[in-house]
């Protein structure tokens, strides 16, 4: 009797195991086209997504979602991306949230996402790569090569919209990412240090200076500490980088979508 019961349990477990993987909830999204769901999805989008992807989903720091949708992204892919996040970027996973919240966000995006992308990628990639090496690589790193004072750009092509890249090259001080804010210090013995703030508390500050030295300082040992409002990255107005070169550079940055770092 016990043996039969065990066999039954084992069969049951096997059947349950065969039922996985679970179906993607977005395969049958009950919220698509439902006005109330779309309204809720809009509110959820504004609170959870708009800070990076823009209020109109046209991209800010994060990619232009209208372009992602116009590019043929399926609802299942959107669901997985929202649920799991994008490793190596600032896109976090929405782990604890109900499926319905994600499905309502998708319903909202489908409502607004039928507009084709306003700007097309492209340009002369070779020229873009040359410009990058000449103008950017001393501060920015790609696939383990280049400077360290600016953010690593190995995956910038999937983590920034074209419009965000354009803004951040033309006017880099408009938004400075955390851990890249500019500070100037003068120690009590007269040493002057300029760099980016990596961390700080009431009593200490941690800095990477312009020579890429990382170092902590006790505030009690400083004569002066200035929080600068401008980025260490120079602005590139049209007089310094014309529209055509900018287009080439952004085109090249769009190709930076990760690197094989497994050592193979």
């Amino acid at each position, binding site marked *: 009797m016990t043996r039969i019961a065990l066999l039954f349990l084992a069969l049951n477990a096997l059947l349950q195991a065969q039922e996985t993987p679970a179906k993607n909830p977005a395969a049958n999204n009950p919220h698509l086209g439902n006005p109330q769901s779309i309204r809720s999805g*809009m*509110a959820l989008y*504004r*609170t959870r997504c708009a*800070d990076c992807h823009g209020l109109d989903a046209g991209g800010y720091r994060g990619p232009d979602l209208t372009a992602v949708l116009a590019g043929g992204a399926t609802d299942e892919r959107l669901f997985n991306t929202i649920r799991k996040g994008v490793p190596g970027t600032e896109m976090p996973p929405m782990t604890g949230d*109900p499926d319905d919240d994600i499905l309502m966000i998708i319903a909202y995006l489908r409502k607004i996402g039928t507009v084709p992308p306003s700007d097309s990628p492209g340009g002369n990639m070779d020229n873009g790569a040359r410009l990058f090496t000449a103008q950017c690589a001393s501060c920015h790193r790609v696939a383990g090569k280049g400077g360290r004072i600016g953010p690593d750009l190995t995956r910038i092509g999937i983590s920034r919209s074209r419009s965000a890249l354009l803004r951040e090259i033309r006017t880099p001080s408009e938004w400075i990412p955390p851990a890249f804010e500019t500070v100037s210090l003068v120690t009590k013995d007269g040493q002057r240090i300029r760099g980016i703030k990596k961390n700080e*508390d*009431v009593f200490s500050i941690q800095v990477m200076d312009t020579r890429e030295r990382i170092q902590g300082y006790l505030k009690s040992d400083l004569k002066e500490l200035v929080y600068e409002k401008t980025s260490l990255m120079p602005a590139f107005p049209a007089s310094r980088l014309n529209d055509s070169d900018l287009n080439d550079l952004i085109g090249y940055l769009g190709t930076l979508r990760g690197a094989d770092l497994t050592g193979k």
Partner: protein
Amino acid sequence: MRAFLTIILCSVSVALAAQTGTPLITSQDLLDGLKDPTRWLTYGGDYNSQRHSPLTQVTPENVNQLTAQWTFQTGTTGSFQTTPLVVDGVLYVTGYNNNAWAVDARSGRQIWRYRREIPEDWKGCCGAVNRGFGVLGDRLFMTTIDAHLVALDMRTGGVLYDVEIIDYKAGYSATVAPLVVKDKVIVGVAGAEYGIRGFIDAYDAQTGKRAWRFYTVAKPGEPGGNTWPRGDAYLRGGGSIWVTGSYDPQQNLVFYGTGNPGPDYYSGAREGDNLYTASLVALNADTGELAWHYQFTPHDVHDWDSTQVPILADLTIGGQPRKVLMFANRNGFFYVLDRVTGKVIIAKPFVETTWAKEIGADGRPVILPGHLPDEDGEKTCPDLGGGTNFFSPAFNPATRLFYVTARETCATFYGYEQTFKQGQQYTGGATTRPRDQKNFGALRAIDPVTAQLKWEFRYTLGNTSSSGVLSTASGLVFAGDGEGNIMAFDGRTGKNLWHYQLGVPIRSTAGTTYMVDGRQYLLVPSGGALTAFALPQRP
């Protein structure tokens, strides 16, 4: 014959052990609070919740010599929000994920550990935290994240009883440190983000049998019930209890701040004042009957739980001796209430507040327009985290200063209709931080007689703190910032006198202090570690 003698000898030795073993904590001990400074017996230090220790070995003059003595690592994930109890040289500590420990107060070495499994389908808004034990006799009382009340043997950590407060599957959890009054253990439930109806319960300390229940959400047809819409909205009305209250033995009243109404942000789901959410309720400790209530935020739509710690004191205000209850509220106002009548004596903002012009003569806030969350969003200060929150304030009756960790913050609040589903979050909205907003935290000293700011110590711009505050009779104040520092201040001036980087910010408490073997210890929980500090021992 030999066996008989052995039995007699064993009986004698057990009887002797009972006389000299771990002392039994009586109701009188709880009433005495911190009079015996080797002990810390209740969440707020004493029934007044002043978190003010009579100890004076560590002073403003020598505090800069405080040195770490030991660290106890729990080895678990999640951060402490607990206030450890201290009895007879042993610490009793609750932690994350239904864990608890007895730890040697001299060395930081574990004596026993208790752990209760969390059901796999348990869900909660804010982590499986716990805020501490209650104690009576030789037993400890602890709520669990899946809404049970557990009584443990102080000497072994063995379970004496484990009773269900309510079914966690309906969105309930419990994180509050029990308040033990006479023979009763008073607890409450959390879960206002999951559409619960909150309540405060009292259980018989000996048997675990429920003695009374007070619902913090009034039912239509009962007193206060007309402040909810008709129908069943009250069943999802929130009103969590997740921070321990205070007790006035003279009036035999317990005082509890109550949580936000549910859903948090969507006003349309619950027209009316929504009693007794975002309120202070004064209940008879024996029966749970409501003596009076005061609602800080009628019809709250910003998730401003009033689950802060009420501090009781006797003050002279306008030449008159007054029995007061002081309350720095998440809504940004600091209140002094008459704890006999429940009437407002003083109410003034202690942080930037944009939602109310003032608290009117009738005790109601004078609401400013443009602060009802909708789908387009509205900016309000403070943010959902509030002007302060669950972290304990402190009060020094000698300097008559109220010390609180304040938060200067704003948020854009969105509100929208949401369909309720049992076991899923039910907030009816969300918030974002405005792009131009630079938050900061500060330790503030407030004169409760005038509600004026006496001094402040600002923490680093861009971050806030969730640390509580501890005051001592030598004139010291201890508090933590959002970056992991525990700090000591001169309580009269706010001058920083000492700090130590713990590695993880303190949450909920700034620590407790106790005396063992003639040494005063400062005990600080942060992250998954307890660190004890003391002055260097003289050879």
